[in-house]
C-alpha cells in the first residue's frame, strides 16, 4: 500500500504543475474575489449573491479540474508508454490504479480546500465589517458536499478511463453527471409512470447512476432562515454514499484494469 501512496503523492505533485489545472484554480479564486463587487445591492442581498456565486464557482472549477485531471491520468501513462516502466518495477496494477485515484482525489481536495478557505475567510471579513452575524464557517458544509460530489466524479471518470478514450470519457462523464443531478426527476418519473417497464427503467436509473444531486446543499447555507430536518444525518449519509459508491467504481476499475492490455 505504501507504493500506492507514493504514486498518489507523485500524481498530486504532477497535477499541481499542470498549467490548465492551475488556470482553473486561479480563475476560481479570482472570480470569487470579483463577486465582492456586488456593492450596488443591499447588504443582505449582496451576501446572498456572494455566497451563491462563490459556492457555484468552487463547484464549477472543481468539476472542470476533476474531469480533466481524471480522464487523462491513466490513458496518458499508457499513451506515453511510461506505464511499462512503472509496472516493470514491483508495482502491481491495482497499486498503480489506486495510487492514481488517490492522487486525483487528493489534488481535488487541495484545490477545493484552497478555494473554500479563501472564500470563507472573505465572507467572514465581509460579515464582520458589515456588522452582521458571522456564519461564514457554515459554508464549509457546502464545500464538504462539493468535495464529496467531486470525489465520486473523479472515481467515475477514472473507472470510465479504463474503457474509453479521454474525449469519449469527457462527454460520457459529464453526461452521467447531468443525469445524476436529475435524480429527483428520475425518481418522480419512476413513481408516477403507469407503464411497468418504464417504472423499472427509471427506478434502475435512479439507484444505479451516481446521484450527484444528493450533494446540492446550498439552499440552507444561502438562506439561514431555512430549517433543515436531520441535517447531520443527511450530510453523513451523503459522505458515506460517496465513499461506498466510489469503492464500487474503483474495485470494478481494478478488476477491469487487471485484465486490460496495455
Amino acid at each position: 500500500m505504501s507504493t500506492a501512496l507514493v504514486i498518489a503523492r507523485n500524481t498530486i505533485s504532477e497535477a499541481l504543475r499542470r498549467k490548465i489545472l492551475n488556470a482553473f484554480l486561479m480563475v476560481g479564486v479570482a472570480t470569487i474575489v470579483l463577486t465582492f463587487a456586488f456593492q450596488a445591492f443591499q447588504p443582505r442581498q449582496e451576501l446572498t449573491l456572494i455566497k451563491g456565486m462563490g459556492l457555484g464557482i468552487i463547484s464549477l472549477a472543481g468539476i472542470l479540474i476533476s474531469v480533466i485531471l481524471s480522464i487523462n491520468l491513466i490513458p496518458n501513462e499508457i499513451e506515453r508508454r511510461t506505464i511499462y516502466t512503472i509496472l516493470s518495477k514491483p508495482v502491481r496494477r491495482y497499486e498503480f490504479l489506486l495510487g492514481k485515484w488517490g492522487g486525483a482525489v487528493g489534488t481535488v481536495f487541495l484545490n477545493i480546500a484552497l478555494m473554500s478557505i479563501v472564500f470563507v475567510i472573505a465572507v467572514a471579513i465581509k460579515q464582520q465589517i458589515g456588522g452582521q452575524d458571522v456564519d461564514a464557517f457554515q459554508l464549509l458544509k457546502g464545500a464538504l458536499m462539493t468535495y464529496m460530489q467531486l470525489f465520486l466524479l473523479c472515481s467515475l471518470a477514472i473507472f470510465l478511463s479504463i474503457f474509453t478514450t479521454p474525449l469519449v470519457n469527457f462527454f460520457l462523464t459529464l453526461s452521467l453527471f447531468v443525469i445524476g443531478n436529475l435524480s429527483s426527476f428520475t425518481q418522480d418519473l419512476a413513481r408516477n409512470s403507469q407503464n411497468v417497464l418504464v417504472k423499472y427503467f427509471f427506478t434502475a436509473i435512479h439507484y444505479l447512476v451516481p446521484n450527484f444531486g444528493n450533494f446540492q446543499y446550498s439552499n440552507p447555507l444561502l438562506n439561514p432562515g431555512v430549517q433543515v430536518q436531520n441535517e447531520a444525518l443527511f450530510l453523513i449519509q451523503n459522505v458515506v454514499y460517496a465513499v461506498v459508491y466510489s469503492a464500487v467504481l474503483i474495485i470494478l476499475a481494478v478488476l477491469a484494469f487487471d485484465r486490460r492490455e496495455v
Partner: protein
Amino acid sequence: MFSKSQRQGLLGVVAALVAGVVLLQARIDPLRRQDAIEPKSVQKAIGGVASGQGANQAALPFEYLLGTLTGFRQVIAGLLWVRTDSFFHSGNYDAVLPMIRLITWLDPNWLDVYSTGAWHLMYNFTDTDQRSDRRYLEPGLALLDEGIANNQHVYDLYKEKGWNNFDKVKDYATAVEALQAGEKQDPNHDVTQIGHLLAHSLERSGNPDGAIAQWEKVAKSHKAILDDPKATSEKKGRATQGYNSARENLKHMKVRRIVRREDTQPPVNAHFDVTVRRIKPKVLEISGVLNLVGAKEFDMGTPENPGQGILVEGPVDGARVDVRLQDQGYAMKRQKEMTSFEVDPSVTIMQDQLSTRGGKMVKKGSMFVAHGKNAYGSVERNLERVGVYGFTDDEVAKFKLGTVPLSKGLGQLSATGQLQAVTAAYPLPFGSGKKLYDASEVAAQMAKLRRDAKKLAELDAKNYRVSLGEGYQYGTFKREIDMSKDPGMYSFSKDKYELILSFNPRTAPDFVQDRIGWSGEGLTDDNYLVVDKERNNLRMLRKVIVLTKDDLTGSGVKTLTGTK
C-alpha cells in the same frame, strides 16, 4: 493478475456495496426532497419552458436550464437577480416581472426577491402623474403570500405584508393579522420593524387600547435588550432608539385616550360635499368642501398627570379626501400565489388624494391678519397656535370684518383676542414649558402692550387687525385628474363606473383626530356620514357617484354631480 477466487471475492464485495448504495439512497431520498434543500417550485421554473404557455409564462433559456438542473440553481438565480437590477435601473420595469417570477421559483427562500418584487409591483407602476397602477396590488400581495408560505418561520415577509397593507392598501385589519403572525412565527423578529408597525396598525384599525398594550409590550422588549449584558453595543443603540420611541408613543396614546373623551364632543359637522365636472374626455375636475377642525394648540402632560388636551381648536389644513374611480362592482381579489404578473387591461382603477386647505374662522373681538390680495399669505406659526387666521380683502368684505388695526382696536379685543395680541407682541420663549399665557399673565402683558407704542406700530405693519364681525370658511379641495395621458392604464372599456370620495378619520393626522376622534366619534355630517360596523364602527364620510362610460369619455364640459 487476480486469481479466479480473488476476482469472485471482489465481485461479491461489489455486489454487497451496490446493495449498500441502493439502501443508502433510499434513506437519503426523503431527506433530500424536503423543501429546505430541494424546493418543489424549481419544477415550475423548468415546467415554464416545457409547457410553452405563451408570453405570460416565465421561461429559462436553455443554458440557464442546464445550470439549474446540474446543481447551479442558486447561481442562476443570482445571475438573474443581477440582470433584474440592471433592468430596473434602466427603467425597463416590465422586464423585471418575469425575472422575479423565475427567481422566486428557483430560490423560494430568497426573501429579498419577494420583498423587492412586491414593492416593485405595488409602487413602481404609475401613470404620468405618479398615481399608482392599483391593478398591480393583487399580484404584489399574492407574491408576498407565496413568499410567506415558503418561509413561514421568518418575520421579514410578514413585515412586508403588514407594511404594504398599512401604507398602500390601507387595510389595517389585514396589516394587524400579518404582523401578529410574524411575531408568533418568528420569536427572534425585529421588535422595531414588527412591533412598532403593529402598534400603529392597531391604532389605525380603530383599536387604541390594543395599540397601547402593544406599545407597552414593545417597550418591555427593548428594555430586555438594554438589560442584556450579552447584547452588542450596536444592538443596544438600536434598542435605545426603539425604547425611547415606544415610550413617547405610549405617552401620547395614553394621554389622548383620556382627553379625547371630552375633546371630541360635541361632534363637528363636516359639511362635506363634492362637485365633479368632466372638462375634457377622461379629464375630471373634482372640487368640494370639508369642514375640518383640529387642535391648533394641545397640552399633552403625562399619563399620570394628563394635560388639558385641546387648548385652542379651529379649522386646519392637511387632512385628505380619497378619490377612487373604478369599474362598478370591482373588488380586489386575494390570491395565495402569484399565478400571473399580467394585469387585466380591461380593468380601470384610479386612486388619488386631495388635500383640504383654506379653512378659517374669526370671532368678533379676535385678531386676524389682512393679506390684501394675496390668497397664499401665511400666518406666523406662533399665531396659528392661538387661532389667528389670514383673510384676503374679498374675505374681509364678505364677512364684514372691518379694517381696524390692532393699535386702534385694543379696547375691542375679546378675551381670546387679548391672548392672541400678547402672544403676537411677546411670544413665549422656546423651551419655557408653557403653551399659552394664562389669564393673569394676559392681563399684565396687555397693560404692558398698551404702553408699548413701538411694538404696536410693529404689529400694525404686519397687518394685524381686530375683527368687528364673525367669519367662518370651510376647507376646500380641488384637483384636475387627467386620465387621458395613460390609455394603457385607463382603458374605460366597461359601461359603468363608481367614483368614490371619502374621508377616513383613522388616516387623519393627530391634530385632526384630537378633535374628531380615532374613529370619527367627534365627526358628523348631514348627508354623507357612514358607520362601518365591519371596521370597528368607523364613522367616515363617503359619497359614491355612479357614472357611465360616456360621462367620462364624452367631449365637452359636463357637470357630473353637485350644483355647480
